[in-house]
């Protein structure tokens, strides 16, 4: 590989920058990370490329681990309602992630309810209901075309009255550049926030690992609209490295809480910093 015993020459630094760029880290951040490594290598007098690997891996790992809650999954407690609001652009994996979380927490013996707050897309509620059957979890839904915020409101009322431990709110995919759709989402979030009382609210951006630099724009826009408490990096079983989460950590300190590793109910794991860095550099 790149770190196996060549000379530390200008071509090495170029190739390292390319490894990062091809992993979707982004041109600007890749350049500054390579600069940071050059500086650190000088300070420590690292003479071989093998020596650089460990140094670089720890630089990257540190940048991620410094972000509070990086790699920490959502941990609902029995007796206190936790609301998990899933948001993101079209097709990123929100509904599937909702289903996986429902399966996981239901298996752990928690009382879970899901809200089918995607009232726009064809068969969105049907898709979530099938996950409801798989997990044995109740799904609160209304007809296609009804008010998304109303579904969230009803589901929260049901969760509170039935003493549920978790409410998972699935929302419609929306491009962050669409102002009216972001306003709709803010309304859903406002209602949940207003009605939640002592309940905790986690707002997770569901982000496809294959995304390029637009992933950063997504994170920025969704964050300024709703204040995100984390990212779920989906389709990480693909060959894409998801390097954009480094830029997201860098600019917004938003932690990655989970990775999606497939389409099945068990294909969700807490995000692992070491594994991510290793995969990025290979």
């Amino acid at each position: 590989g790149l770190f196996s015993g060549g000379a530390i020459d200008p071509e090495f630094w170029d190739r390292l920058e390319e490894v990062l760029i091809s992993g979707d880290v982004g041109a600007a951040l890749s350049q500054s990370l390579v600069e940071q490594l050059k500086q650190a290598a000088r300070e420590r007098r690292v003479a071989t490329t093998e020596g650089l690997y460990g140094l670089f891996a720890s630089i990257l790992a540190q940048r991620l681990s410094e972000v509070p809650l990086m790699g920490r999954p959502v941990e609902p407690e029995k007796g206190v309602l936790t609301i998990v609001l899933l948001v993101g652009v079209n097709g990123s994996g929100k509904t599937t992630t909702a289903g996986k979380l429902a399966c996981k927490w239901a298996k752990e013996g928690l009382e879970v309810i899901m809200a089918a707050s995607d009232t726009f897309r064809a068969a969105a509620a049907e898709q979530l209901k099938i996950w409801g059957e798989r997990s044995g979890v109740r799904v609160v839904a209304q007809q296609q075309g009804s008010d998304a915020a109303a579904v969230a409101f009803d589901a929260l009322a049901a969760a509170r009255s039935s003493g549920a431990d978790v409410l998972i709110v699935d929302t419609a995919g929306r491009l962050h550049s669409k102002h009216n759709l972001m306003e709709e989402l803010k309304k859903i979030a406002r209602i949940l926030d207003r009605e939640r009382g002592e309940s905790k609210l986690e707002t997770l951006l569901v982000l496809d690992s294959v995304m390029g630099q637009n992933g950063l724009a997504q994170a920025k826009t969704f964050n300024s609209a709703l204040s995100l408490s984390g990212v779920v990096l989906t389709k990480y079983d693909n060959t894409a490295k998801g390097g954009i989460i480094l830029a997201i950590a860098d600019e917004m300190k938003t932690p990655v809480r989970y990775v999606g590793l497939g389409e099945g109910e068990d294909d969700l794991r807490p995000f692992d910093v070491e594994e991510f860095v290793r995969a990025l550099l290979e």
Partner: protein
Amino acid sequence: ALRERFESIFDRLKGRGKLTEADVDVALRDVRRSLLEADVDYKVVKALLESIRGRAVGKDVLESITPGQQVATIVYEELADLMGTEPSPLAISPKPPSIYLMVGLQGGGKTTSTVKLARRLAGSHRPLVVACDLRRPAAVEQLKILAAQSRVPFYGPEHGEKDVLRVVEGALEYASGHLNDVILLDTAGRLHADEELMEELAAMKRAAPPTEVLLVVDAMTGQEAVKVASAFHERLRLTGVLLSKLDGDARGGAALAIRKATGVPIKFAGVGEGTDALEVFDARRMAQRILG
């Protein structure tokens, strides 16, 4: 925008005779950064910069336009030429039915795009959309609802059917009985790296040799676009690409990379969630968009 940035870069060139390598290289650093930020594959960026350099260096600085405009024009033209400025229409089989196989990664927009294409063809043909995604929960239902909303004929699997080849078989039979002359097969999203699922597509191709194999790609796709498109192309011999979600603000550099890596033309742009949101791909507009 690129032109404006080039104006300031080349401002000091006014009155000089030819564009020197040094001048052009300053501009190309800007282009490199811009293209990478637009998700153009870094290898494609390298190759592009070379050909732009080749065309720009040594050019006479013209009377009529500024050097900045000159170089910007060369850059736009290189990008547009690469993506192909000739519109590439959908192939129609000389011997009906035409069969279109829709393929791609999970969540890219295949199901929605299947109905968009069918709706576009409904004016001049009798299209039939076929639900061959037997995997994703409620995928068949999604296609059925979209087809009904767009008044496009629909064919789906028998309840509990697990074999896509049986659905393809049934669809061909149904189409001949109902005089459908275009059959659009919506398939399950899959990873290019999943050998078993890529083989499923190859088997579908053998069962119903397609007139078009269309790769549906999300316009927000990053550096992995080349690998994905090349893998699908190698395995299935793509005939076209549909770039979806271009109504967003992604610069869409994946378009360049895919065309360069596979030679497959980008035929359509998805520009919204509605089944009417489909445009013929415009390489010149795309070049402007990629360059920001």
